[in-house]
């Protein structure tokens, strides 16, 4: 009996603080987001008032009229979803295929490609901005040297190139992590399978599509889900590269700016909740499509 009580005390002591922390920073924050999204702070009476769905109709109106760039923010967040799922992950998969084939310098490549993950995004975005700087930047300088000076741009400072440049940054910095996970999965494919296919004389392209991809499908699904969910959180990249200007903003960045600059807590919560729900739906649809695709190979 005494042993049982001391066991109970132990369990409670070990879990008490982490559960309290979770209750405050995850549970309470999420419930409060729902609560604030149907409230507004009334400065005359100095308190919160229930306003039903007014924040949501305001958000909807802002999206349609692109007030405060909310329309562009929603468009961009979905473009980011496409970028992560259809561009970054396929590139990372192809790179992982080459590196696991142990082509010359494969060790060097895989350690270098991972560098963006160990350096602060603050330093990474600064380094990127220096490279693309209009007067002191390396890219414009190279364009001058090879006689293509007419192509010089204020890359991150005008609406026609800024978004593309921010996307390029995301590809540049985003391959390494996906490559690491996918390379790990390819490395675990049983040797017999690969050797058997080699004896059958399959080409590299056939091997890639018919052996590698089906064999690591569960990992690909995981990586795609992580990438898709991440698309709905992107905001530091545009914040640090352009401060969200020149058509590069995203929904989470609008949420951040609405809180920190306008104190628009109700609107920010409505936007945060809307994008979380949309993200959840998008990830769910993607997951069921990928699972259906995976069944074909079983």
């Amino acid at each position: 009996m005494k042993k049982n009580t001391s066991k109970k005390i132990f369990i409670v002591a070990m879990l008490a603080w982490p559960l309290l922390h979770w209750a405050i920073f995850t549970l309470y924050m999420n419930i409060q987001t729902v609560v604030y999204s149907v409230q507004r702070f009334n400065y005359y009476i100095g308190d919160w008032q229930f306003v039903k769905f007014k924040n949501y109709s305001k958000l909807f109106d802002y999206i349609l009229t692109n007030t405060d760039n909310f329309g562009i923010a929603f468009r961009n967040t979905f473009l980011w979803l496409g970028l992560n799922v259809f561009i970054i992950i396929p590139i990372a998969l192809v790179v992982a295929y080459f590196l696991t084939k142990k082509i010359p310098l494969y060790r060097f490549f895989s350690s270098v490609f991972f560098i963006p993950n160990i350096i602060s995004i603050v330093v990474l975005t600064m380094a990127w901005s220096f490279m693309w700087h209009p007067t002191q930047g390396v890219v414009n300088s190279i364009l001058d040297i090879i006689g293509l000076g007419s192509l010089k741009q204020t890359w991150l400072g005008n609406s026609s190139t800024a978004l593309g440049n921010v996307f390029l940054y995301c590809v540049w910095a985003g391959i390494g992590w996906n490559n690491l996970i996918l390379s790990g999965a390819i490395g675990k494919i049983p040797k017999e399978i690969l050797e058997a296919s080699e004896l059958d004389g399959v080409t590299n392209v056939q091997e890639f599509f018919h052996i590698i991809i089906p064999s690591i499908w569960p990992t690909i699904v995981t990586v795609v889900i992580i990438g898709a969910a991440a698309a709905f959180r992107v905001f530091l990249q545009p914040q640090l590269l352009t401060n969200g200007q020149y058509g590069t903003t995203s929904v989470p960045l609008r949420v951040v700016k609405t809180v920190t600059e306008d104190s628009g807590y109700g609107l920010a919560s409505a936007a945060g909740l809307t994008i979380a729900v949309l993200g959840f739906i998008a990830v769910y649809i993607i997951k069921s499509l990928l699972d259906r695709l995976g069944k074909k190979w079983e």
Partner: protein
Amino acid sequence: MKNTFNKKYLIIIEVILMFYAITLIFPYVWILLNSFKSVSEFYQSIWSLPKTFNIQNYISAIKETNILIYFKNSIFITVFATFIQILFSSSVAYVLAKYEFRGRNIIFALAVSGLLIPVSGTLAPFYLFMSKLGLFNTQGLFLYYASGMGTNMLIFYGFFKALPWAYAEAAYIDGANDFQIFRKIMLPMAKGPIIAVGTISAISIWNDYFIPSILLTNPKQQTIAVGLHSLYVQQQFAASWTVLFAAIIISALPTIILYVFLHDKISKGFMLAGLKG
């Protein structure tokens, strides 16, 4: 796997991958070289090698900016927050993996579900909560970091689940209690996950920008990532690029050195965290 590529294709692949690798390394080499130049030397040419390896910019960065204070704050916060994250996440994982009690599965599900919810969406209540309680600056940041659920917990959970319970049985017979068994027997065996969680937590806390930038309103308490960004913003008006370069090198050096020596362990840790999360 053997590489069975046609030579012609292999060369093209190598060139593309090498180009990408160079774009990843070059900016830091460029920043390093230019950090030894004077401002006028830098404006004359961004390509030239520095005439002398002048450490004037490093002296200015240390004397004229708060970089040393930021550096000290970052070390303090990183060491302490990494320690508490290891402590709490291993505690939760150990109890969930080794003890039967009601609510265990629910707690496990909660820990995993938290990973799917974005931080920025709930910023409004977070901001109001922290400001109402006056929890800005270092104390608020520690409170925020002191979590025990999430990926770190999952790494420890996988380890403890596989660890035989026989070690504990023997210790019970010797009269040890649950706390002693955890602290003196189980935790010392978890060296692998402690190193994995420790390096990942330390790197992400050292590099963390968003929540610190919101909470650390007192410039004397800012971390290197937050302080460096404000230096960058100031530099856009002062045009003292080369001093900023020196500050960047100082701030990125710890993680780069760590990566050069430990890159196998670090990538393994990230792989573990990525697949569990």
